[in-house]
């Protein structure tokens, strides 16, 4: 056991980049703040490169509290690429804004938090990751100083604070019972202890992670944050924290003793998230709010492989694939809304195909991708997670996944239909913002390429997980 601080180089790069943005913002003229965007992009690229290089020397760091293995690497690269895509949206939404540098700093800090969650192998590190990933998010959601933005920030903060406290309580409880917070010790030490107490502790920790993942029961903030904040913040907070939270939950579940059906607990959360998210998205008129609820349901799908962690060989690779696929597709969908910031109802998309065919195709690919239509990446993710669920002894969960996909099709089509309609193009479609439009197209293209090349990705990605 040694410290090996360099094992956390990717996290350090991101955090350092965030600090440079924060401090540099005070010394950079407003019209030159694009330099800070370049700094942030460089930090993210550096993070991805460092993550890949770091995978050459796997192992634990900080006396086993943090671990670098195949899963950490996959999570780091996904977070870095997803954040980079989100950063592209800044080109037209945040550029020249009086909160530009702060936006970059907060995004980088929160991304660092997601990375810490990804590699955490100790409940205390998990708690640090939670705080680092959630505190910047509160500020990020509230950066747009509108009534809706304020409400969203307040809601996010309240839900986050409550679930953060619950999580710390859970950590305390587990520590009190086990006498250790390190994952490798938990299984042996929790064995034979009163199940109710152990269950209470674990459920509280899981609840905290549910906030990060935007899953039931801690999902209330998601639709408001998606609707009330800037498009950039919406895309970020519905994508990147999920990656960290889902991987962290997977690690935690593997570390627990077999005294209780933890998988079933996660399966129930997954089912509730999918179903509630889908049903709530039905009546939405604001595309961002609709997407917000859609991400709640997507969190449910993402938790499916976690429910069969350890019981199906497919669980881990399918989860990593789905995370990457979801991140790219979801950002593409949000990018369409930031490309047309003034169009805030579904009817406003009427005639998009005629007016802006490129953007319309990106929208259709992204939304049908979220449904899980082949050959997009989410299809492969959904196929493999559904297979993993059945393989892991939960065929009912497979049926739930497929049934919910059908339900979700309905509201995605409520958005697709006007976009494809032969109607006279609506007024708001005249001038889509270039950076966002390009990002949407890029995300949609990546989604299709990853779907077609899934086999290659499957072969390349190392899915080792150090216990």
């Amino acid at each position, binding site marked *: 056991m040694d410290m090996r601080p360099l094992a956390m180089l990717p996290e350090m790069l991101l955090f350092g980049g965030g600090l440079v943005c924060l401090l540099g913002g005070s010394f950079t003229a407003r019209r030159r703040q694009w330099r800070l965007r370049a700094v942030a992009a460089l930090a993210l690229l550096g993070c991805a490169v460092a993550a890949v290089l770091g995978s050459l020397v796997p192992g634990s760091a900080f006396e086993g509290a943090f671990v670098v293995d195949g899963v950490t690497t996959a999570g780091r690269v996904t977070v870095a690429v997803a954040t980079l895509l989100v950063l592209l949206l800044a080109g037209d939404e945040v550029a020249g804004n009086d909160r530009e540098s702060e936006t970059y700093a907060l995004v980088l800090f929160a991304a660092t938090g997601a990375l810490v969650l990804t590699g955490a192998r100790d409940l205390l590190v998990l708690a640090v990751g939670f705080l680092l990933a959630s505190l910047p998010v509160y500020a990020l959601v509230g950066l747009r100083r509108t009534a809706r933005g304020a409400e969203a920030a307040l809601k996010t903060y309240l839900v986050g604070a409550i679930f953060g406290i619950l999580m710390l309580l859970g950590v305390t409880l587990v520590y009190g019972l086990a006498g250790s917070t390190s994952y490798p010790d938990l299984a042996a030490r929790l064995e034979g202890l009163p199940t109710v107490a152990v269950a209470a502790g674990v459920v509280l920790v899981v609840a905290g992670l549910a906030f990060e993942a935007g899953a039931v029961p801690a999902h209330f903030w998601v639709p408001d944050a998606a609707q009330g904040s800037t498009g950039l913040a919406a895309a970020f907070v519905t994508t990147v924290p999920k990656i960290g939270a889902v991987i962290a939950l997977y690690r935690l579940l593997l570390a627990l003793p077999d005294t209780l059906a933890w998988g079933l607990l996660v399966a129930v959360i997954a089912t509730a998230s999918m179903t509630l998210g889908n049903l709530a998205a039905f009546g939405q008129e604001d595309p961002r709010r609709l997407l917000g609820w859609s991400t709640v349901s997507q969190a449910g799908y993402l938790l499916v492989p976690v429910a069969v962690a350890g019981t199906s060989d*497919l669980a881990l*690779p399918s989860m990593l694939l789905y995370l990457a696929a979801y991140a790219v597709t979801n950002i593409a969908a949000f990018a369409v809304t930031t490309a047309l910031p003034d169009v805030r109802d579904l009817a406003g998309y009427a005639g998009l*195909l005629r007016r802006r065919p490129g953007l319309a195709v990106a929208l259709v690919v992204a939304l*049908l991708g979220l449904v899980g*239509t*082949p*050959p997009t990446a989410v*299809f*492969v993710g959904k*196929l*493999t997670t*559904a*297979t993993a669920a*059945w*393989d892991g002894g939960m*065929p009912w969960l*497979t*049926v739930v996944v*497929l*049934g919910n*996909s*059908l339900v979700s*099709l*309905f509201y995605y*089509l409520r958005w697709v*239909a006007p976009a*494809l*309609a*032969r109607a006279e193009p609506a007024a708001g479609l005249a001038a889509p913002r270039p950076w966002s439009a390009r990002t949407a197209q890029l995300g949609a293209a990546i989604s299709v390429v990853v779907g077609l090349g*899934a*086999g290659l990705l*499957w*072969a390349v990605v190392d899915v080792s997980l150090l216990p």
Partner: protein
Amino acid sequence: MLSLTVFLPLVAASLLLVPGVGPTAARWGWVLASALELVLVGVLWWRYETPPDRSLAFDEQVPWIPGVDSSYHVGLDGLSLPLVAMTAVVFLACAVYSVRDPDRPRSRAALFLALETVCLGVFAAADLILFFVFFDLSIVGMYVVIAGWGHGDRARSALQFFLYTFLGSLALLAGFIGLYLAADPHTFDMLELARQDPFAGGGTVAAAVLGAILLGLAVKTPTVPFHTWLPPAHTDAPAVGSAVLAGVLLKLGTYGFVRLGMVLLPEAWRAWAWVVLVVGLVSVLWGALVALAQKDLKRMIAYTSVNHMGYVVLAVGAAGVVSSGTTEARSIAVSGAVTQMVSHGLVTAALFLIAGVFLDRSGTYEIDRFGGLAGPAPRTTGLFAVAAFASLGLPALSGFVAEFQIFTGSIAAVPWSAVGLLGILVVSGVFLWTLARVFTGDLGPSSRGFTDVAGHELWAIAPLLVLSLAIGVAPRPLLDVVEPAARSVVGLLGG
């Protein structure tokens, strides 16, 4: 060679989308690409030799997602080759039919060409995931066709179509996952699954998997009671969309019955063949009777499609009712089912294209608004009469060859399936009555000023009917391809 055939239309579609391609170039490019495609399919047919059991001609395989043993695996046999050929013919007919249509020709041509690749892909696929990818994309493509080029309440019909058939495709996917997990080693490869026969022991999981697959296919085919999406989808789809939907897309369902149900789950198929048979019988009678009550020409044709697909389901059900000494009869039933798929594809595509002529001239499909059309539109009358006779199974046309085989085989295996003959009787009545109402008697309000079919419409519709006649007069070239495959499938079922 086969992959080239499958993807040529998609390549052509992407070429048409290159900026700068004019509307005329797009329309003729579509015709050219479809014609080239037909030539390629002709070459495939010419070079085709019946493959040994449990193997495919023109077999091509490239790993796709090795983690779940899914590959890009395509190949043809006597079940799929005739359908591939029929698909190429129907799409060419649609291209020719649309050659004067000014409605966004570039994107329409690209969309239909992409749809052609997708349909060919389903028939050629020898991997369940590949099959599903193409199957699902066919739904997306048809949704865009109805929503983008349809008329009437098209948004609603398209939505209903998408939701309903997507339900079917998800049920299918659940069945595929069940098959994958039952196989050891796990695989999505159809040939490997047929070899392993993972559900040879029967059991509840086998029944559930077959149930999911049957549900998925029953929605797509469609059979009663899952047929309610079909009439509105047809009514609001453009003529070429209807031709493809009825001619090709419905076959994806019936083809699946044979390719997935019978071949991959023979044991469960035998156990549940009665259910399939009864569903087929009900579809035959229900489709025929409801067609009788229709006032709208397109809805009438749509319901006769339910009836005709019912014959196919009836035949594949009867083929699963195993008793000693009926092997020959049951293989005739399967061969009749494949022939019916080809025949229905050609004839119904022709009928829907003729219905398109009606809408183009008069803006309505209402049968009562026409009458006495034989005078002003003799060529339309001739085409419709031939198509109607082919559809109702008049000898010397393809429908007769198909239905004769289906009933010979089915009645020999299960005598009471003869009840289905009533369906033929009723459909004959429907078509003759429609012919009488639309083409004879006094001129109806929409018959005045009705211009006869133009050159390009004639060139689109007539070849379909000529092919139907060719199959009816000389069925051997088709049956020589189909019969070995039918015998091989029935051999899998035992008996």
